[in-house]
């Protein structure tokens, strides 16, 4: 599991995750994820293009970060998840918690 910081300015943060958000994946990336996302305290685009698997541990990591950002009136936008990952997120009720967007320009608009 890898996390890449793609963009960071005063408005928003853009990161990309790649790999599997399973037990090992979450363990590998959670500290850095929390540090980058909630440490900066800015709205964040999470590029999910290269995430092939997510289970409840990974979802917990996203919800925890989104709750933290919400206290600063900031948000998370999940960008371009693979269809089966999107299905898992939607089944877990993520549509009511954060935007899942396949159009990057729209994702950018949402965090600016």
């Amino acid at each position, binding site marked *: 599991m890898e996390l890449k910081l793609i963009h960071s300015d005063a408005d928003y943060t853009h990161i990309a995750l790649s790999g599997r958000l*399973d037990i090992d994946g979450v363990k590998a990336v959670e500290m850095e994820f929390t540090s980058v996302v909630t440490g900066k305290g800015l709205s964040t685009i999470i590029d999910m293009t290269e995430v092939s*698997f997510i*289970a*409840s541990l990974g979802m917990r990591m996203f919800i*925890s970060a989104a709750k933290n950002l919400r206290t600063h009136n900031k948000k998370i936008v999940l960008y371009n998840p693979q269809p089966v990952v999107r299905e898992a997120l939607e089944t*877990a009720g993520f549509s*009511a918690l954060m935007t899942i967007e396949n159009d990057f320009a729209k994702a950018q608009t949402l965090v600016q």
Partner: protein
Amino acid sequence: MSLSEFQTAATFEAVSAATVNLDRFAEENNLSPKQKYCLDLIYEELMTNVAKYSFHSAAEKHFIRVQLQYDGTDCTFTMSHDGIPFDPWQQENPALDVSLDEREEGGVGIFLTRQFSKSVSYEYKNGINIVSVIF
């Protein structure tokens, strides 16, 4: 009918290390990407739940047995262990229609497993929990 059996200690580390068995099973049976996703999800959610809650102490001394079957259409995942009697399918569904502020951070694992399955079952027999999922 294809069959695979293995066992793992009831710890997160051992459960995670044993996923190599899932990869081999999926490859041997040419499972679809969706079916492999279901297999990985069901395995992770049910096994970590047992590792976390089913043993008062010394989880590393207890084993979880896993049996995987594939009949050419459906997969059956069966997990058995001698932990505290617990039927995961009796767990209440999480509240999903709530705002982010009200939303619990966890609690969706068993729900997700059920949603990605065709049928589920549980029995407690001779001191052993037997949890099965068809998908």
